[in-house]
């Protein structure tokens, strides 16, 4: 036991539940509930769906990047979550959104544990390649597993989900469901990454050193992989709910590139990053779509420019600017007080 007079370690100090940026992010996601209530424009509603689904999926990438692992496996877990919901909804007639949400989170999260045991030993580029291959495999399995997954037709006819017996059927209600799933995803991610931030930071900086200092790296990696899979599963649920169909093309392996792009362009350092990235890039895609076939190229150009100009993504760039300004202000205040003290 430490004596009461001894200086306490920083982590022993009572920490606030969330940091400022995390509160802002959660508030933004929570505010999205207002959109379907205030707006009836179908364009805006579908845009909201796309942004929130993209942002939730990007959280899967964000969580793994806490440990410097770039995961291409998000669509694979989205597919697990989405198909679970579709099978439960279509074949078993379960429509309760809470039950389905729990299933969409738990099934991928549980599947991720044995998978993680296999692939979490890999690092860096190998992890990138293996998760890419994994997503390809799942894509092929969806096509081949006809009796369960409906093969190339997918599973069609997902019934509307119900919330305490109320059917969420209209356009606005579907967006509300997406908002709810996104909020749960963001809450889980925020709590999880906040709770283990020191462990993740240690693994990110130098995992060998962290392990030699007694941190069970594999444990945190496995938990994170599992939570990342669960959150991705929620995004898969949201897609299936919006399209009323579970189809392999919703979970194409190249779509993992989008989620990674949202995270990196938005900023991988803060949970706000995936939200900003998804918001900006989904809107950009929509805007670029006015230019028709140029759209992916402009998207690619944007990725390159942001990577070159803002290494930490847009949120990283903004926090750097703020900090620099604060520091300048701080220096000015110090100067001022020194001058005052002298005079």
């Amino acid at each position, binding site marked *: 036991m430490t004596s009461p007079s001894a200086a306490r370690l920083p982590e022993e100090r009572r920490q606030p539940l969330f940091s400022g940026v995390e509160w802002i992010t959660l508030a933004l996601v929570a505010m999205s509930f207002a959109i379907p209530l205030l707006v009836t424009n179908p364009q805006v509603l579908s845009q909201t769906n796309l942004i929130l689904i993209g942002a939730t999926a990007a959280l899967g990438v964000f969580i793994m990047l806490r440990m410097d692992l*770039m995961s291409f496996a998000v669509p694979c877990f989205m597919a697990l979550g989405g198909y679970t919901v579709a099978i439960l909804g279509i074949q078993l007639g379960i429509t309760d959104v809470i039950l389905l949400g729990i299933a969409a989170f738990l099934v991928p999260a549980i599947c991720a544990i044995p998978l993680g045991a296999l692939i979490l030993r890999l690092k860096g*580029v190998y992890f990138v390649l*293996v998760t890419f291959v994994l997503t390809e*495999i799942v894509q092929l399995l969806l096509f081949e597993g006809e009796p369960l997954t409906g093969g190339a037709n997918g599973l069609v006819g997902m019934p509307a989900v119900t919330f305490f017996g109320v059917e969420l059927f209209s356009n606005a209600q579907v967006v509300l469901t997406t908002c709810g799933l996104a909020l749960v995803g963001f809450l889980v991610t925020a709590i999880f990454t906040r709770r283990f931030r020191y462990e993740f930071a240690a693994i990110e900086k130098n995992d060998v050193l962290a392990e030699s200092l007694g941190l069970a790296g594999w444990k945190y990696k496995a938990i994170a992989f599992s939570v990342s899979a669960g959150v991705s599963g929620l995004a898969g649920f949201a897609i299936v709910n919006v399209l009323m169909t579970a189809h392999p093309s919703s979970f194409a392996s190249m779509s993992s590139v989008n989620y990674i792009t949202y995270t990196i362009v938005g900023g991988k350092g803060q949970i706000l990053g995936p939200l900003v990235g998804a918001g900006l890039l989904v809107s950009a895609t929509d805007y670029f779509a006015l230019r028709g076939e140029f*759209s992916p*190229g402009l998207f690619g150009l944007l990725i390159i420019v942001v990577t070159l100009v803002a290494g930490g993504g847009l949120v990283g760039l903004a926090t750097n600017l703020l900090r620099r300004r604060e520091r300048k202000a701080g220096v000015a205040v110090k100067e001022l007080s020194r001058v005052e003290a002298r005079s």
Partner: protein
Amino acid sequence: METFIATGLIGVSLGSQYALLALGFTLIFGILGVVNFAHGGFYVMGGYIAYYCSVVLGLPYALALVIASASTAAVGWLLENLILERVIDDHQATLMVTLGFNLIIATAVLVIFGAESPEFTFPIDGVWRSGGIYIPYANMVVLGVCLVAIALVYWLVYRSNVGRAMRAMAEDRAVASALGMRTKVLFPFAFALATGLCGMTGALVTPILALSPHVGDPVLAFSFLTVILGGLGSVTGATVAAFIVGLVDSYAAVYLGGSKGALTLFVLVLIILVILPQGLFGREVRRS
């Protein structure tokens, strides 16, 4: 039995194509430490340049092949020099840049040539037959060119001074540049060599298989598979693995059918990775 042999020969021919693609990919990774997500893009670019030169401009196919290789190499050289060089030490940044560039190539091809796949066939037709075995001459030409190219790459990497310098940089960049290897010259050179190989493969193979703006994505996936199997950064590994992948691919396509061939390969590679994370010929997992 004849089907078996014929399938094997197709497999070898496929393997030689994969080998060229994988060699480029593995050179870029081994020397620069960059995972080139634009690899499929360069393949498509090579195919379209060859198509434009030989079909639209009416140049001889051999010349079109040379132009396609040279221009993809030039684009690769520019990409490395102008953009990748700035972020070369950050593997996430290089990944993002190549991903972005892949999208740009795909769009450029789509805008210039349209989404329809153009009429582009190999200039030599006819089939060589002996007993029940049929092999198109086109495949034999491709196989021959690929084997020559592979031999040249080997000579360059293992027998020339440039190759020694490149291998030294792959081993330890800091020490190699302290000893006078010029990063500023060799990195773009290696990148251009790799993209040139990729463009050449595109120019050779697309007239036989298919040419459309999206044929690059499977190429990327197969390059990944091959280099994982062979061990990232290992030249020998990439070559051997490419032939394994080619053979498995063609046998599975004939005897299992559908996408089961690809599935078999992917699962095989996943298992190998779990048992031997460094691949069949990789010495160690490169930290990057």
